[in-house]
C-alpha cells in the first residue's frame, strides 16, 4: 500500500532506506542538489514524493594510480573535485554547477557536460560503473571498476540522460585523468557568427590540442583553453595569431561563468540544445535579434548550445528550435515550464524503445517521467 507524499523530501541514509522509500510511494522523483530541477513544479501535475540523494554521499573508493573513483550519487561535485585535485586529477568534461551544489547523480541523470567535453569526451565517456535500484526494487550492479571493460551490456551509459526515469543510482564509478600542469586561456574576436564558425572549424581540427573551444554569442568571441605550460601556451598562441589575427590572453576565471551556467542572467530560462556549427550560427543570429532578452553560449566547438532567455521570449525560441529541428532540454525553467522538460521538434515523439525500456526498468512507473513537449505543444507529464 502506498503512502501519501509528504511536502518535504525524504532523505534515505542507506541502501535499505532508499529501497524502503522507493517501495513506499506510488510515484517518486529523485533530487540531488536541486541545481537543475527540484521536482516541485511537477507536483502541480501529480502527487509525487521527492526523494533526496543528499544523505547518501561521499567517495567510497579512490585509487589515483588506477584513474578511477567510486562515489555515492548524492556526492557533491565540488567535494569530488577537491579530493581529485589533491592528487592532481580531474573529471575532464567540466561538469557544470559544481559550486551551486550539483551532485554526481544529477550530472549523470541530466547528461551534463561542460566546456572540457571537447577534448576527451563527456559524462557518457567517463562513467564506468553504476549500482542502482530499479523501480521494482531490484539491486543492479553494472559496469566495472577498471578503466576497460567489454563484458555484458554497458548499462551505465543507459543512465546518462535518463533524467531519473529508469532507476535510483547509488554508487557510480568514473574514470579520471591527470590534471593539466597549467591552464591558459585566450580569446579571438570575430566580425560575424559566420566567421566564428569558420574559425572554430579550423581551430577544432588543428594541431593545437585545445582542452576547450567555446563561443560567446553576444561578444562574438571564441574562447580557447590550453592545458600546458605557459611557455608552450605562448608559443601556440603566437602560432594561432599568425593564422587568425589577434589572440588575446584571458584570465582563467572567465570559465567560471560557463561552469556556473551564467549566460548571463541567472533568473532567465536556460535551454540546452545539441547542435552543429551551422545550427549554432542560426541560434546566435536569432538571439541577436531578440536582444536584450536572449543570449547564447556554445561549448565544445559547436556541439552544446546554451540559450539564456527571458520567459517572455520562450515561445518564440520554441518556434525557432522547431524550425531548426533541434531537440532541447530545459535546464532552468520558468512559470509553467519545468526544468528537466525535454522538447522535441514537432512530429517527433518519444520512440517506442524508450517506452519499452521504461517498462523494463520501472514496470510500476514509480519514477516520475520528465515532462515532454513538442515545440508546438504544451508540456505534459506522464
Amino acid at each position: 500500500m502506498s503512502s501519501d507524499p509528504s511536502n518535504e523530501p525524504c532523505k534515505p541514509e542507506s541502501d535499505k532506506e532508499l529501497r524502503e522509500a522507493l517501495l513506499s510511494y506510488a510515484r517518486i522523483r529523485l533530487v540531488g542538489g536541486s541545481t537543475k530541477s527540484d521536482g516541485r513544479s511537477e507536483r502541480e501535475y501529480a502527487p509525487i514524493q521527492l526523494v533526496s540523494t543528499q544523505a547518501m554521499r561521499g567517495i567510497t573508493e579512490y585509487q589515483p594510480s588506477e584513474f578511477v573513483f567510486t562515489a555515492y550519487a548524492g556526492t557533491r561535485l565540488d567535494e569530488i573535485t577537491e579530493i581529485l585535485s589533491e592528487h592532481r586529477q580531474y573529471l575532464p568534461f567540466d561538469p557544470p554547477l559544481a559550486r551551486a551544489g550539483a551532485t554526481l547523480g544529477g550530472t549523470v541523470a541530466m547528461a551534463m557536460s561542460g566546456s572540457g567535453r571537447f577534448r576527451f569526451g563527456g559524462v557518457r565517456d567517463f562513467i564506468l560503473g553504476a549500482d542502482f535500484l530499479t523501480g521494482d526494487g531490484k539491486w543492479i550492479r553494472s559496469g566495472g571498476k577498471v578503466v576497460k571493460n567489454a563484458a555484458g551490456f554497458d548499462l551505465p551509459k543507459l543512465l546518462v540522460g535518463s533524467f531519473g526515469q529508469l532507476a535510483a543510482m547509488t554508487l557510480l564509478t568514473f574514470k579520471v585523468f591527470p590534471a593539466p600542469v597549467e591552464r591558459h586561456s585566450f580569446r579571438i574576436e570575430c566580425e560575424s557568427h559566420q566567421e566564428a564558425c569558420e574559425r572554430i572549424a579550423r581551430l577544432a581540427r588543428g594541431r593545437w590540442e585545445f582542452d576547450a573551444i567555446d563561443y560567446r554569442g553576444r561578444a562574438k568571441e571564441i574562447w580557447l583553453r590550453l592545458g600546458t605550460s605557459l611557455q608552450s601556451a605562448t608559443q601556440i598562441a603566437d602560432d594561432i595569431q599568425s593564422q587568425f589575427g589577434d589572440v588575446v590572453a584571458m584570465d582563467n576565471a572567465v570559465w567560471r561563468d560557463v561552469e556556473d551556467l551564467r549566460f548571463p542572467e541567472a533568473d532567465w530560462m536556460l535551454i540546452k540544445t545539441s547542435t552543429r556549427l551551422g545550427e549554432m550560427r542560426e541560434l546566435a543570429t536569432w538571439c541577436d535579434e531578440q536582444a536584450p532578452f536572449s543570449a547564447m553560449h556554445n561549448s565544445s566547438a559547436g556541439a552544446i548550445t546554451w540559450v539564456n532567455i527571458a520567459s517572455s521570449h520562450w515561445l518564440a525560441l520554441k518556434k525557432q528550435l522547431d524550425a531548426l529541428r533541434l531537440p532541447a532540454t530545459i535546464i532552468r525553467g520558468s512559470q509553467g515550464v519545468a526544468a528537466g522538460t525535454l522538447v522535441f521538434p514537432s512530429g517527433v515523439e518519444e520512440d517506442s524503445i524508450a517506452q519499452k525500456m521504461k517498462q523494463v526498468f520501472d514496470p510500476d512507473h514509480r519514477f516520475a517521467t520528465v515532462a515532454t513537449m513538442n515545440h508546438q505543444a504544451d508540456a505534459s507529464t506522464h
Partner: protein
Amino acid sequence: MQQPAVLSELREQLRAGTVTTDDASLAAFESDGLTAFRQRPLAVVIPADSNEVIETVRWCNRHSIPFVARGSGTSLSGGAMPVAEGIVISLNRLNRILQLDPDNRCAVVQPGVVNLQVSEAAKPHGLMYAPDPSSQKICTIGGNVAFNAGGAHCLKYGMTSNHVIGMKVVTAGGDVVSFGSNSLEAVGQNYAGVFCGSEGLFGIAIEISLRLLPPPECFHTVLAGFHSLKAAGDAVSLIIESGLLPGAMEIMESLAIEAAEAATACGYPSGAAAVLIVELEGTREGLVDERSRLDQVLRQTEAFETVIAKDSGQRELIWAGRKSVFSAAGKLSPDFLVQDGVVPRRRLGETLERIQSISNRSGLRVANVFHAGDGNLHPLILFDDSIDGDLERAEQLAGEILQVCIEMGGSITGEHGVGIEKRDFLPQMYDQETLELMHRIRAVFDPQTLANPGKMFPDGEAPALSNHGLHPLEQAGVIQRE
C-alpha cells in the same frame, strides 16, 4: 525440411545472387577469428544496401529464423560464429562512407566500412578516427560497434563507444530507429552508447555516426628494457603517478620478445625479461615539457636500457615488434590461444605471478603481452594440438586466468567481448538480477531472441571445440591480434 521453401521467399525479395547456400560459400563463413569454434549456417545473405538488410531482418522475424550479422569475421571471442538453422548476414557490401563533415568532425558510415578507411578518408581534412584495433586494416566499423573494439590507445582515447555519437539501426524485431545525432552531444537517453558492445544481440547498425579527431602532431616513443616483469610494472606506476597521460603503454615479457624478434628483428634490448613501450603524443610545443618529465621518471626506474625512437622509421620498427607478437607465436609453438582480461593496474604484478604459477602447474607456456596503461592482459597460451588433451589443457588454463582477473576486481574482457568463448564466465561478473535485467533489455530490441543467439549469455548450445590454427588472414600477415 521447411527451410528451403522459406529461403526461396527471401531469394525472391532480394536481388539475384544475394542469398547463397552452396557448400563452398557456407564453409567460408563457418568460423571467425576464434577458429576453435565452427558452425555451418543455413545460408549466407550478402545484402547490397540497407533496405536489403532491413528486409532480411524482417524476413527472419516473420519466420523466426536466427541471424548473425558479420563484418570481416575478425572477432576473437567467436562473436560472429554462425548458429545452426540460422543465416549469416554479411555486411561487407555496405561499405560506403555516406557523409564526411570536417567542420563538425563527424563521419557517417555504413557498417561494412573498414576501420582504417575512415581515418584514410578523414586524413585530407586533418582528422582521424581514434579507435585502432590491431585488425584495423580489415575489421569493419559494424563489428567494432558490436564488440566495442579497443586498441592500444584506449586509456587516453577510450573505446569504440566513446567515438560513436549516433546510429540508425534495424532492431532484431524489425523496427528502424535512430539514436543520438551527428552532434557530439545528444539530447535524451544514450542508446547509441548501450548499443555499442551489445555483441549483435540488439540488431544491426546500418548507419553509424563517428566522432573524428585531429591526429597528434608529434610522437615521442621510448622502449625500455627491464630485468624483471615487476620492474617494468613499477615503471608504469611511476609514469602514471607523474601525471603524464601517454597515448600508449605496452609491456611484453621474454617469450613474447623472443617471438617478436624472430618475426621482425625489431632490436628490442637483448636479455630483457620485459620491455615497456611508452608513447607520448601531442603538440611540438607541449611535448618538450612532457619528454623531459618522462625522461626523469624513467631514470628513477630499473630500466637497464632505454631507446628513444629518433624518427618515424624507428618508431614503426618498435611498434612492428609489438604488433607481430601473435602472428609470430607460430615460431614458438604450433598452436596458441590468446586470452583477454583486465585487472586493476596496481595488481598487474600479482596477477602475472599467478599466471606464471598456473602455467607451471599446467605444463603449458604462457607469453604475456599487455596494454599496461589500462591493465588489459593478453596472455598467449602455447600448446600443441597434436598432443592429446593439450587443447583442453589450454582452454582450462585460459579459464583459470579469467578467474584470476575476476578475483583481482577486473573484467573477463577488455576488448574482445564475451561471444561464445567467455559466456560461461559472465555470471561471475554480474549477479542474477543484473543478468536478468540484461535479458529484459535485450528483449526490448529482440523479443524472439533471434539476433546472435547463444552469445554473451551462458544459455546457448556449446559448439564442438576443435582447433584450426590461425585465422587465414593472420597466416597471411594481414591482421594481428591485440
